[in-house]
């Protein structure tokens, strides 16, 4: 290399290429992404908007505790891995799913299961003709004896307080500081994770927000750009 101007021009050119290809071009594609809106005839407001913007305080707790270092929130197409077979979602997640997220918490490691659709529910017909909303997010075979009965708020609190009472090999840290000790009043709180004669350990507001955030995670809504691979009716049978 003979002189410095060649050097700096070349370096700048390399950077411009990298920035252009990796940042500017994708931005021009993604910037125009809008929520998927469905209008019914003659209506003044849309019948369905997906995704809806919601501010969940629990997302801050999720981020602050560094849950993203073990839990991802992206479902991949079957060609990349058995994400959907594990029951993590009925379809792959697309860019549209995250347009309202300030920083999508996609995650880059799975030391724990993917949580994209933790709150995924479906209406399942019961024998008596009524419909029940059941949690669809599951990754255990129906005959698996370790399969939890339900992944509801109480289960989440138990998992946060003491993960290894639920799964002995879990590497999830115990978040004891998200719980506080209170006197048992008239009766034990349904959310109490532990108790002795006088005191019970109940979730703090942060833990409640976190649980609500996790139960709100649902990216199962049908979108044009990704076909639904697992239909809810099919999944309900499993």
């Amino acid at each position: 290399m003979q002189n410095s101007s060649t050097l700096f021009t070349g370096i700048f050119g390399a950077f411009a290429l990298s920035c252009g290809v990796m940042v500017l071009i994708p931005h021009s594609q993604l910037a125009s992404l809008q929520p998927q809106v469905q209008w019914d005839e003659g209506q003044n407001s849309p019948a369905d908007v997906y995704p809806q913007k919601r501010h969940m305080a629990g997302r801050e707790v999720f981020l602050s505790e560094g849950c993203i270092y073990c839990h991802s929130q992206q479902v991949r197409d079957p060609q990349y891995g058995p994400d959907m077979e594990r029951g993590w979602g009925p379809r792959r997640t697309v860019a549209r799913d995250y347009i309202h997220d300030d920083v999508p918490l996609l995650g880059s490691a799975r030391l724990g299961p993917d949580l994209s659709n933790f709150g995924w529910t479906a209406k399942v017909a019961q024998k008596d003709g009524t419909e029940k909303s059941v949690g669809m997010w599951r990754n255990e075979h129906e005959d698996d004896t370790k399969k939890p009965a339900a992944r509801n708020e109480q289960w989440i609190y138990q998992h946060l307080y003491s993960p290894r009472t639920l799964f002995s090999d879990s590497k999830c840290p115990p978040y004891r500081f998200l719980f506080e000790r209170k006197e048992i009043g008239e009766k034990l709180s349904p959310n109490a994770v532990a108790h002795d004669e006088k005191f019970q350990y109940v979730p703090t507001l942060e833990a409640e927000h976190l649980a609500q955030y996790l139960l709100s995670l649902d990216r199962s809504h049908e979108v044009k750009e990704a076909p639904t691979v697992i239909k809810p009716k099919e999944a309900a049978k499993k």
Partner: protein
Amino acid sequence: MNATPETTSAKQGGVTRRDIENVERALIDQSARGPVLTFFTMAVFWLLVSAVLGYIASKKLHSPDFVLGPEWLYKLLHLQRITTGIFEHLTYGRVWPAYTTAMIYGWCSLAGMGVATWLIGRLTRVSIKLPVVLQFGAWFWNAGVAVAVITILCGYNSGLEFFEMHRVARMLMFLGYLCIGIWGLILFRYRRQSAPYISVWYLAAAFFLFPWFFGTTDALSSMALPGVMKNVVNAWYQNGLFNLWLGCIGIAAAYYLIPKIINRPIYSYNLASIGFWSWIFLGGLTAMTRLSGGPVPAYLVTISIAASILMIIPIATLTINFVRTMKGHTKLMASSPTLRFTFVGTIFFSIAAGLGVLAALRSVDSYTHFTAWTAGQLHLVTMGFFSMVMFGAIYYITPRLVGCEWLSRTFIKLHFFGTAYGAGTIIGMFLFGGLATGFVLNEPTADKMGFYNVSGIANAYMPVKTYIGYVLFGVAQIIFAFHFLLMRLRIGQPAGEPTLLQTPGEGH
């Protein structure tokens, strides 16, 4: 700087060109002393911090209930409140980002900037002017890293990997960087060496590009971008951080130190040129493989896979250059600490970059994605390659700044073995543990869909990483820090004869 020995003029009372060059070098070294020692001291501090945080993070991964000590000890010291108050909050999710921040921005970057400062002085053959600007830069950067690590441990997280720190920390670091970067460009402008040496190309790339992608990522991260664009920008930033910042500084140091110690020129300047240009053009395009399968435009991932495969070109040229330059001189590694650390560092580089090419392929990626393998790749780059080269450089540069040689060859030997075997263990356990997990993560059988079948797979690997890898590494760094402290206090061997690992002529 001339690698080939000069035939000198008359020795009786005449001043040879060699003498003038030596005096010039000594003057440059003296002018660089203040700032470079500041950089090194701060870097060594963060090295110790990151060794401790690394141990804690690693232990929390297989023993999440570990709270820094047995319960009875806290009861004895009446410190129960501290266990519940502070240590319980130090979960893996907080300690890991603090660890990577301290390691990359604290130890690696500060050591890199110190080595680069000295290298630029030597390579431009200009005494360092206005060293106080550099000192300010170092302090600002240091303050930024401190704010970053503390706020992350307290729960702040921006959500962007390897960029978790608070904006205030980023501003401080950027301000510190401006002092250093502008200073570097001015020195380059007034250089006395017209045709820049290879190391200068790489340093120019590192110092010119770092503020661009650091600043751009910071600016974009605070704007309202559509969802996954922030993840795309984050991946692009990681490209810049590892390939163009750490990678370039490490390669620059290796290109200077290896020929210097063995007193031979680099094997091929043509190869070096090809290696440089292909590195910086391809190096900025490879990172999207981290998002493969994710909710981003597919062409981004495909471009990155293609660029990663093409990276074979710069990796091959760099490997050939380093190995062929060293050919016939490898026995010098038995005595020279700098050569040993630096060359082993370049071997780690080849392994790191080579595995990066492999892991980009879809077939391999399906087993390594989302596992501890990527942490292994991270440590290959930062601990294996970059840290080893930095240690080699620090062992070379420090005696020239403090006026005495390293006190104890035993300390250096212990440091080398602890670092090499410790880092090797850590890296190996991450890679193999990750791969073992990846096989089950990727191909579960119908009755083993539950994630709890995956959690325990790396149980055999992770404790080895903690109790052998991080302990060896940590103890080695404590020895090194102590040794460095002695140097700063001018407690060492008299100047003149470098402290070698074995006396030449000793047959081991």
